[in-house]
């Protein structure tokens, strides 16, 4: 049994970081959130562009913000509300308060200057408390790994994704979980994933999720969707959507498929999980955060620097050229599988070692460089 030193939470989850989060309920509160975080070094601002003007997504935005505020890597949360926003603030407060030490500030009660001052004071108090919390030993079965690819190239599916697949196989073998998502990038892989499903229910779920993604792709791209991959992909050597998708799902290794969950939903089983979710990285990352993954591996061929405010993200470069260009942003060079005699077994072992160092506290490049930015909330309707 492999163990790591993590942070125990009252709700039974275990974190690999111990963040104090300053959470904006609506975009109007973003500047105050940023100023509080600037005044309390170490606090993590969560800012986003929504919170009003979108009716259909209200429940998903509420749940996403609760997901950030109660994430396993979060010690305490300060909620910053404007006061008149349409997102159900009380439900967000109740949802976060049930699981984490929480403070609430309303800008319309006393203005931005006083709210910022109060916020800095509260954040410093929480940061001091958080610094007193000691890590405890837990089995890695407590961990759920998020896997993502973005800015992919022809080598992503040949070097970086299969290396992540090795980490998935190892972690699931230890009793932990790994999540693959980006439903559009599973089109064409139904027979492969259905064959790996642990039972009929999961087989039906994965078949439905991919059929829905395919139906959506055909609506947008027309009946030739199977051939309609980007021209850049075809020039890069790709042929069919199956070929591209098979490279994508390599992040899920070779283990059985335990469960299929909706966007941001927490799984009830451990093992390999599919989250039904969008291909757009920003929205995908919020879903993976909301479901409670504590750490992420992110493969890229062109170079995507983005991180997640509450989660360490390990960046894998698929090729040597990218690693040389963006070494400041890349944690692992999977291009060595092409340029040297490195085997998949060696690459997998090296990634497992890196994963263990990161869950024990070693910062990733995205953490060191503060590549958190603005959180994306899932949107599909037009604003009013």
């Amino acid at each position, binding site marked *: 049994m492999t163990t790591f030193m993590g942070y125990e939470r009252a709700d039974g989850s275990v974190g690999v970081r111990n963040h104090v989060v300053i959470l904006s309920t609506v975009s109007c509160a973003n500047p105050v959130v940023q100023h509080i975080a600037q005044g309390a070094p170490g606090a993590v601002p969560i800012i986003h562009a929504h919170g009003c003007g979108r009716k259909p997504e209200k429940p998903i935005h509420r749940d996403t913000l609760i997901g950030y505020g109660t994430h396993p890597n979060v010690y305490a949360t300060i909620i910053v509300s404007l006061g008149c926003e349409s997102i159900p603030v009380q439900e967000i407060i109740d949802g976060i308060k049930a699981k984490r030490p929480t403070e609430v500030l309303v800008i319309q009660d006393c203005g931005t200057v006083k709210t910022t001052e109060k916020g800095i004071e509260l954040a410093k108090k929480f940061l001091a408390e958080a610094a007193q919390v000691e890590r405890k030993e837990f089995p890695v079965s407590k961990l759920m790994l998020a896997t993502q690819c973005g800015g992919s190239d022809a080598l992503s599916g*040949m070097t970086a994704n299969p290396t992540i697949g090795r980490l998935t196989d190892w972690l699931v073998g230890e009793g932990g979980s790994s999540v693959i998502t980006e439903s559009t990038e599973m089109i064409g892989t139904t027979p492969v994933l259905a064959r790996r499903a642990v039972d009929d229910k999961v087989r039906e779920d994965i078949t439905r999720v991919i059929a829905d993604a395919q139906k959506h792709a055909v609506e947008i791209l027309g009946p030739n969707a*199977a051939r309609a991959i980007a021209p850049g992909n075809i020039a890069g*050597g790709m*042929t069919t959507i199956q070929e591209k998708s*098979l490279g994508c799902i390599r992040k899920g290794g070779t283990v059985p498929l335990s469960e299929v969950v909706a966007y941001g939903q927490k799984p009830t089983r451990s093992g390999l999980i599919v989250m039904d979710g969008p291909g757009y990285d920003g929205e995908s990352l919020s879903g993976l955060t909301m479901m409670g993954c504590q750490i992420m591996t992110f493969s890229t061929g062109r170079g995507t620097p983005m991180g997640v405010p509450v989660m360490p993200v390990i960046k894998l470069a698929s090729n040597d050229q990218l690693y040389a260009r963006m070494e400041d942003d890349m944690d692992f060079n999977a291009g060595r599988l092409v340029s040297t005699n490195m085997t998949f077994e060696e690459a997998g072992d090296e990634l497992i070692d890196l994963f263990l160092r990161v869950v024990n506290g070693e910062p990733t490049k995205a953490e060191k460089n503060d590549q958190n930015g603005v959180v994306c909330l899932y949107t599909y309707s037009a604003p009013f």
Partner: protein
Amino acid sequence: MEMVFKQVMIMDDKDNVAVALHPIAEITRVTLPDGRVILSAEPIPQAHKIAIHPIAKGEAVIRYGENIGYATKDIAQGELVHVHNLDAVEGM
């Protein structure tokens, strides 16, 4: 330092194509990971596929151990496998 130069990568034992890691010229010996040597029939651009076995018209093209499409004409060992001789699996 020893220069290492892998020519192609094969993702699964069942695959009937390999992927060129660097551009391969016409009529060049290509050493496969298992040590077998085949001859390229035409130039293979980087990240494109080369047939490592003959693939008959209508037969599945296998990569990652899975069917990625069907040969639309007979493909000889060493030939480029791309959208000119491979089409999508029906209905995806």
